[in-house]
């Protein structure tokens, strides 16, 4: 996906003014949050589980190189071919070559965020391969020529009427708007593709080093058809996904669907290990696994490494007041919400995504919801520091902060200046006691009103109370 994160501010304003999007986002609001809360309560010992999982992910990342080598060894032993890709470009080239070497004409895909990162569909199509997205949400977006706006519910920004329009045009059938009928129509359209594809491409929620297993955690059953029916199965996965054992998977899968959608388990856990066995009636003859770096090693060994624990559940965006209002597209790249505000600046360069770590209210909800306890606000704060140190914030912000720092170091002057600021502020407040605009700071006040100060400072009040004692 093309990076558009540098246009965050403009796009966020557009999204806020988009009535249809606002209506669709309002419908979604709270559904995931409530479902998760219920599932967490029911589970009982949720906090110990989160602690355990965070440690488990840290331990795997501390020995990332060794676990990757072990994963490769075990996957290879079972007949998989393991490929390594340093960049998005390399990952695509590897998969295009597999397709070309095997005369692949049609690919069915189950949802994979890494494939969105690397622009895989575009590259395969340019090589003359037909690509069919089979996750319902992704299928809708493929018809709409749009990127996903949520990592778990990619079409969260679309209404059923919009889906009906897309289906009517693509399928040439009478327009229906009932959600179950739309789902059935998609099933019927996609059946043919499942059965006729030469290659299936899936992501992998985790890579199990012990067994060389790749796996998907899904509800629809499309990943099962994609990984079972075609003669070639190709997995594309980030290198950070590796975990030591199947027991570790059992632990993480207690967290993932509960955090994502409030289900205790998804309908399907699909573990695939190597190629089909001798005499097996189904399963692929070739199994390829592409391990992708594409920016992940930039987190390793830094003060942002905790981000690599991420299990892509989407809870942080579901709980984010900014995301809830603008949706995923405004973030300008594959990963929206708080996790995207940390991932995107590092993956694509902070100079291309400078607004993202600032697109937060720092309410802290994301860190509370995150099943692997990633301190997302702290990581965003660290990115802000990097921006400041790298002179990547606007000069006015830098000058302002320096001036404030200079003043704060001089208590007498500080008291004098804040005293006057409080007085002027109280004069500026309108009859409603709100300041609607501040000269030179309209970037801040355009979207916000500020309660006018009372005319006295904290220091005044403090002195007064001390005096009363």
């Amino acid at each position, binding site marked *: 996906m093309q990076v558009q994160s540098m246009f965050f501010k403009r796009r966020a304003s557009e999204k806020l003014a988009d009535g249809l999007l606002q209506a669709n986002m309002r419908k979604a609001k709270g559904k995931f949050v409530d479902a998760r809360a219920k599932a967490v309560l029911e589970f009982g010992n949720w906090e*110990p589980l989160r602690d355990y999982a965070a440690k488990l992910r840290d331990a795997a990342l501390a020995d990332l190189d060794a676990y990757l080598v072990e994963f490769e060894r075990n996957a290879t032993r079972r007949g998989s071919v393991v490929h390594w890709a340093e960049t998005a470009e390399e990952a695509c080239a590897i998969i295009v070559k597999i397709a070309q070497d095997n005369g692949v004409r049609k690919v069915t895909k189950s949802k994979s965020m890494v494939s969105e990162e690397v622009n895989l569909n575009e590259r395969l199509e340019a090589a003359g391969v037909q690509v069919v997205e089979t996750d319902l*949400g992704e299928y809708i977006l493929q018809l709409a020529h749009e990127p996903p706006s949520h990592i778990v519910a990619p079409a969260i920004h679309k209404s059923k009427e919009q889906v009906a329009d897309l289906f009517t045009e693509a399928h040439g059938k009478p327009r229906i708007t009932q959600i179950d009928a739309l789902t059935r129509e998609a099933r019927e359209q996609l059946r043919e593709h499942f059965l006729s594809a030469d290659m299936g491409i899936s992501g992998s929620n985790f890579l199990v080093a012990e067994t060389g297993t790749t796996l998907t955690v899904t509800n629809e059953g499309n990943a099962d*058809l994609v990984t079972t029916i075609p003669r070639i199965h190709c997995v594309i996965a980030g290198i950070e996904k590796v975990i*030591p*054992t199947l027991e570790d998977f*059992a632990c993480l899968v207690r967290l993932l669907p509960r955090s994502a959608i409030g289900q205790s388990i998804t309908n399907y856990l699909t573990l695939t*290990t190597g190629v089909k066995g001798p005499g097996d009636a189904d399963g692929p003859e070739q199994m390829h696994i592409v391990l992708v770096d594409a920016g992940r090693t930039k987190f390793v060994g830094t003060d942002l490494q905790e981000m690599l624990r991420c299990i892509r559940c989407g809870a942080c965006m579901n709980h984010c007041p900014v995301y809830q209002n603008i949706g995923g597209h405004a973030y300008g790249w594959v990963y929206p919400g708080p996790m995207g505000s940390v991932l995107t600046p590092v993956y694509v360069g902070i100079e291309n995504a400078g607004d993202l770590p600032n697109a937060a209210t720092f309410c802290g909800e994301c860190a509370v919801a995150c099943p692997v306890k990633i301190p997302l606000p702290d990581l965003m704060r660290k990115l802000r520091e990097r921006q400041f140190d790298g002179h990547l914030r606007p000069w006015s912000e830098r000058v302002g902060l320096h001036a404030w720092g200079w003043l704060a170091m001089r208590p007498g002057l500080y008291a004098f200046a804040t005293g006057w600021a409080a007085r002027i502020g109280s004069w500026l407040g309108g009859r409603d006691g709100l300041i609607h605009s501040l000269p030179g700071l309209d970037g801040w006040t355009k979207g916000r009103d500020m309660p006018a100060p009372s005319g006295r400072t904290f220091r005044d009040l403090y002195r007064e109370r001390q005096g009363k004692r």
Partner: protein
Amino acid sequence: MSARENILARIRGAQGKPGGEPTAADLGRVRAVMANPVNGPQPAFAHPPDLLVQFLKECDRVGTTHAQVASEADIPREVARYLAAAGLEARIVAWPAFAHLDWASAGVTFESRPARRDDRTGLTGCTCAVAETGTTLLLSSPDQPKVTALLPETHVCVVRKSRLLGTLEEAFALVRREQGELPRSAFFVSGPSRTADIEQTMVIGAHGPYRVHVIIAP
């Protein structure tokens, strides 16, 4: 240098480890971890007083219907009853493990082969079932094609009472004990397929079966 060498060297460099590849000591350490799998925290309901009660409760929750039979010989009659009650045709494709049963007198047309696109009902067994989540585990083998549980709109699955376990961890331990390692496909099924991709409204029946019916047999 290959991509593999570069990636491994970058990780090691960033973590302050010497050299470009994991050392024998590094590999020894992670192999020891993998050889001694540890279970994380489990919920209380993963260890219920009665596994069957917990299993059926979770089946209800995920939308799996269920019935119990007194003996293996009763399976065809239960299948016939279920199909009739659901208004479905009395015709199934099944894993060969069920070929010896008397399907004719139950009035069910039976074929022992992997499911194809137009088959309506598939009958399978399972390696074990997990009470915590109402889940069945289907392992692939020549006699256990996965498509039979996947392509038809209705999936009927026989669960042996003796193969009912508490947790996923127990299921993995059982596979290690009995088979050494996972086959190509380990397929954990919890209810009929579903999606909430349009307006976050749950619809039963996406790309997999619309109906899952479990028969508990001795």
